[in-house]
């Protein structure tokens, strides 16, 4: 490939990028997706894969998440794959200490003000009726039926394959080295395997957003947040839905999280969080003690400094659109839809006013970003 052309170039082959490519291709747009490594080689391939609406705040973010979650219905059929999308709800919080209750009740009340969201405080018996394997020692739990989970590989690869079937070009092992602008309009995306002439670029590069942003002179304050996960062997059905950062996949393996550590792009695991998560898992589900752990791994969430997504056009540049932030799986559908709306129509009915990159005011948040990042990648934590 030396000189190519596309209506839109999508930079980054994670779930957001592949969703954008799919939605755009479906709308008849000639799209080329460029991914430096492989599809889902970043956070989308190292994620807990929850569809999480209940723990999103403020209200507009919860509403956006809910909108996106609802759009998963029927996606299986569209993409022609069983995505293992299970809208079974999530018992997100287990009450192990009475002191948690007042705060949790207040949070539930606030969240339930969002139309369509219904968080419920369950008693021990109610929680155990939903999840018989749960320990009787918990005092209660918080459940939300609007949550769920999905297979992240099937979703991401599913989008990419469908996009290709609809005429998109998917280029993996191809690194973007520059974006050509002329009088604040996109002219081309330059890669290490050639130049693609285009007037539109969608940047969905996860933790590499800052690097790509620099190519167009835009500060995108994204920092990696490491999440460590334990994956076990397959076992008989134990969990009916995600519970307290445990989830059982369709093939029977149990994955256990959760942690958030801002220590730079460190993918090696550390045992402090891992041990706490394993201990919590066994407190909640004592029957899992002998389950074998197959893999310990980490994913790097693209966290924005305020925890909210970036979704929308770059104001002063024509043809540049950004989509990033954590919770990529949950927001995958609405992201693809919104980006497609913006590219093809110039506007979207979805409420994305709070997610502009301009809210960071250029350099103003940079010092916060650096405060999150360590100056050097640490040695293997012991």
């Amino acid at each position, binding site marked *: 490939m030396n000189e190519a052309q596309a209506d839109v170039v999508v930079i980054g082959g994670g779930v957001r990028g592949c969703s954008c490519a799919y939605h755009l291709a479906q709308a008849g747009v000639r799209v080329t997706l460029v991914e430096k490594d492989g599809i889902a080689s970043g956070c989308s391939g190292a994620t807990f894969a929850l569809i999480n609406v209940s723990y999103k705040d403020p209200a507009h973010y919860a509403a956006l998440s809910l909108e996106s979650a609802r759009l998963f219905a029927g996606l299986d059929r569209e993409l022609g794959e069983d995505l293992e999308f299970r809208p079974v709800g999530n018992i997100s919080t287990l009450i192990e200490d009475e002191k948690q209750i007042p705060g949790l009740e207040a949070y539930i009340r606030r969240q339930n003000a969002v139309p369509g969201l219904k968080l419920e405080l369950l008693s021990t018996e109610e929680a155990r009726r939903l999840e018989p394997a749960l320990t009787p020692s918990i005092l209660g739990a918080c459940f939300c039926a609007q949550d769920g989970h999905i297979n992240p590989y099937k979703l991401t690869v599913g989008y990419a394959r469908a996009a290709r079937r609809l005429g998109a070009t998917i280029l993996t092992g191809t690194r973007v080295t520059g974006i050509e602008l002329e009088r604040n309009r996109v002219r081309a995306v330059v890669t290490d395997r050639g130049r693609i002439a285009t007037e539109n670029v969608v940047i969905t590069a996860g933790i590499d957003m800052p690097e790509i942003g620099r190519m167009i002179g835009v500060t995108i304050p994204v920092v990696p947040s490491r999440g460590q996960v334990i994956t076990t062997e397959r076992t*008989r059905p134990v969990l009916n839905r995600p519970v307290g950062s445990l989830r059982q996949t369709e093939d029977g393996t149990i994955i256990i999280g959760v942690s958030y550590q801002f220590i730079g792009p460190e993918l090696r695991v550390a045992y402090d969080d891992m041990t706490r998560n394993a201990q919590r898992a066994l407190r909640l589900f004592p029957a899992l003690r002998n389950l074998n752990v197959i893999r310990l791994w980490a994913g790097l969430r693209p966290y924005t400094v305020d925890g909210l997504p970036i979704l929308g056009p770059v104001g002063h540049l024509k043809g540049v659109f950004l989509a990033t932030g954590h919770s990529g799986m949950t927001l995958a559908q609405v992201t693809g839809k919104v980006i497609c709306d913006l590219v093809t129509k110039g506007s979207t009915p979805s409420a994305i006013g709070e997610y502009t990159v301009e809210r960071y005011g250029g350099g103003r948040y940079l010092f916060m970003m650096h405060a999150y990042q360590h100056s050097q990648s640490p040695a293997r934590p012991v």
Partner: protein
Amino acid sequence: MKGTPQRLTRNIERGCSVTVTVDGHPIVAYQGETLAAALLASGRRTFRHTVPAGHPRGVFCGIGVCFDCLVTVDGSRIRACVTPVRDGMQVSTTEN
């Protein structure tokens, strides 16, 4: 044609026998034997069936690397080829 695995006796004396129960049936086993050896000697070459395809599996690598020889003992999935028998051991080849 099925060939039954066989305990060899030349130049060897086995220690005390232990009771191992497999899917509810007692089998002969000797102190120090691996569970795989005891299962094979009892005429069982199939230790499990894969999920969900249901293909039969037994001993393949024999040294604890391939994880084909998994059986359930006291609620844990263990590799029969590297696990010594224990008196009173309860083995399931059907539980997963």
